[in-house]
């Protein structure tokens, strides 16, 4: 096998810097040779802080479903390192392609949390401004965003931007044809697009073993000529390091990059799902001990970067953040039936104008 061919395969084991106890043990020679470097304490502290806030946001959102304030919420608790670290690696020019599960990532990117929750709250639109935020609407039809990200990456390169399109995708969604087509287009057009697979081990109830027989999802990259890596997705340091390398790789014109992050979804698929039907509580308990926040906390406490004072302050910040979300979500969302007709086309068709008239007449009747 030629050198270049080997370069397209991931490391034999997921890249890891911090072990489960938060001790610096990695990344090991193979990973080091690929240029993944340990982030600074400062960067890691920022990741830790945002993970604390992000998780608080996430638990708040789950709570809001119980109060009927959200129609549905897919939690990413347990995947916090994947949700947060790549966001802090993004530059302003970069575009982000999130899925329904990536609300924590969106707020970590700095988007307004209530805007982020708009769709899940029951509105018909994505809430935020995709152009102002360089962020595509959260994508529900699985894997379709993999192709959008290839096109957007190519578009960024055409515009002469250094920007990269970062595409999040789940392990289950890698089975969809659009994942394949997206990676292939990205490779053929040498698009600056990074695919970040959050392998949280389940697609709703279906475990990874029923999804693929690949040695790991990162082995899919070579089939497209795409450089690939697997990383411990609960090690925020490793996630940050590998994502940075991937973004640089893409931004510098070396083409797309595929990352598989091994992580775990601690909550059910959404609040509407009953995870006890398909997985053992043992498994969940075991993964709880690999908590990405605790791990980074242990490391940063060890280096002295994280003090009790900072921790207290960040905890308070997180509570405040959640309180503000809760409060704002208590306001009823705007209900304006006629807005349904406003954004189907730039100009409503005569047919839509008729239908709007009908609805308007009905509203008048009710009012009268």
């Amino acid at each position, binding site marked *: 096998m030629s050198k270049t061919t080997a370069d397209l395969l991931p490391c034999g084991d997921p890249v890891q810097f911090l072990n489960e106890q938060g001790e610096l043990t990695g990344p090991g020679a193979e990973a080091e040779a690929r240029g993944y470097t340990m982030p600074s304490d400062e960067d890691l502290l920022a990741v830790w802080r945002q993970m604390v806030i992000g998780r608080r946001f996430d638990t708040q959102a789950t709570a809001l479903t119980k109060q009927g304030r959200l129609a549905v919420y897919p939690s990413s608790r347990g995947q916090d390192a994947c949700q947060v670290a790549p966001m802090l690696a993004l530059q302003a020019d970069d575009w982000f392609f999130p899925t329904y599960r990536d609300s924590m990532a969106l707020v970590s990117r700095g988007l307004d949390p209530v805007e982020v929750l708009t769709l899940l709250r029951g509105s018909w639109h994505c809430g935020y401004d995709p152009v102002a935020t360089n962020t595509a609407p959260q994508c529900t039809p699985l894997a379709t965003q993999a192709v959008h990200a290839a096109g957007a990456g190519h578009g960024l390169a055409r515009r002469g931007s250094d920007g990269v399109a970062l595409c999040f995708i789940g392990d289950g969604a890698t089975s*969809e044809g659009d994942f394949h087509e997206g990676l292939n287009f990205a490779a053929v057009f040498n698009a600056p697009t990074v695919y970040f697979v959050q392998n949280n081990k389940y697609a709703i109830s279906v475990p990874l073993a029923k999804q693929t027989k690949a040695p790991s999802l990162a082995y899919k990259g070579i089939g497209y000529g795409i450089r690939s890596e697997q990383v411990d997705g609960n090690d925020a340091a490793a996630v940050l390091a590998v994502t940075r390398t991937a973004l640089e790789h893409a931004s510098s014109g070396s083409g797309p990059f595929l990352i598989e992050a091994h992580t775990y979804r601690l909550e059910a698929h959404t609040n509407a799902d009953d995870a006890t039907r398909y997985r053992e509580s043992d498994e969940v308990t075991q993964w709880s001990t690999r908590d990405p926040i605790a791990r980074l906390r242990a490391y940063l406490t060890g280096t002295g970067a994280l003090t009790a004072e900072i921790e207290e302050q960040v905890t308070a910040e997180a509570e405040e953040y959640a309180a503000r979300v809760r409060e704002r979500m208590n306001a009823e969302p705007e209900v304006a039936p006629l807005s349904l007709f406003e954004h189907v086309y730039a100009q409503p068709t005569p047919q839509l104008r008729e239908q709007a008239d009908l609805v308007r007449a009905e509203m008048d009747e009710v009012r009268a």
Partner: protein
Amino acid sequence: MSTQTQSTGTVTMAQGLNRALRDALTEDEDVLVFGEDVGTLGGVFRITDGLTADFGEDRCFDTPLAEAGIAGFAVGLAMQGFRPVIEMQFDAFGYPAFEQVVSHIAKMRNRTRSMLTMPIVIRIPYAGGIGGVEHHCDSSEGYYAHTPGLHVVTPSTPADAYSLLREAIASPDPVVFMEPKALYWSRAELELPVTTEPFGRAAVRREGSDVTVVAYGPQVPNALKAAEVAADEEGWDVEVIDLRTLVPFDDETVAASVRKTGRCVVVSEAAGFGGVGGEIAARVSERCFHSLAAPVLRVSGLDIPYPPPILEHTHLPGVDRILDTIARLQWDDQPDVARLEVSR
């Protein structure tokens, strides 16, 4: 179809469907149930609840997450004599399988002069009214009904859910089986063996003499409710037809009714333009023109992407819109042209 006579009492449509799958799995070894989350989980709507436990993973199983894959895998299994019953988790998630459904499942019998047949059932929970977020409430029956080679079926009662699904599985041809999500938890009697109308026959759910309301799937209960209100409040005697199967279409029952009543309203939940509602209205007008006292009118979803929970009631044909439309049938001149053209 089922040979034991037994009353199950009242059941939900979801239970009726589950029972139909069970009975089919029991009676025919070649029936296989598969799709996303239909195994251990029992489906996100629990329609396949307990099937893996009771029939083994061999008969009811989860697949990789890929709808074209699921449909194409069913094609390959049908080639080997199996009778796959597959699930598209939500209507909009059937679109990735569109090519497999339209270019293969619908056409294989024809392409092989009936030497290779596709006894595949594609179950699709469809339509709205359940507060689902975007992409979860599409009404895609129009796409399938417009595709020669497919049967398209949609029940509105637990008994129909049972009998139509059994007939669909027994059918030598592919059936797109559209399950109205909003009715999954509606309850009614289910007595086995069921004695519903056969595949291809519409059911007259309520007899009436003044106007025919043609509906299917999720809108049948609204049509019936509207009929009651119309009788109570306006004294109009509304006949309600539940189509049950869209393809084949029961022209006979529909035309006989409209020739009797002289008036017709077609109710469908999908976006109106280019959908099944237009087809029905056109057929009725073609066949019953000289019996009609008023134009056939339609009540349908708006021509917009399915809207969010907080606005879905604005989109959905409801009892009021059906009643308003019936009221507009009492024309003797053209009072409504003005209304239709108000926006010009």
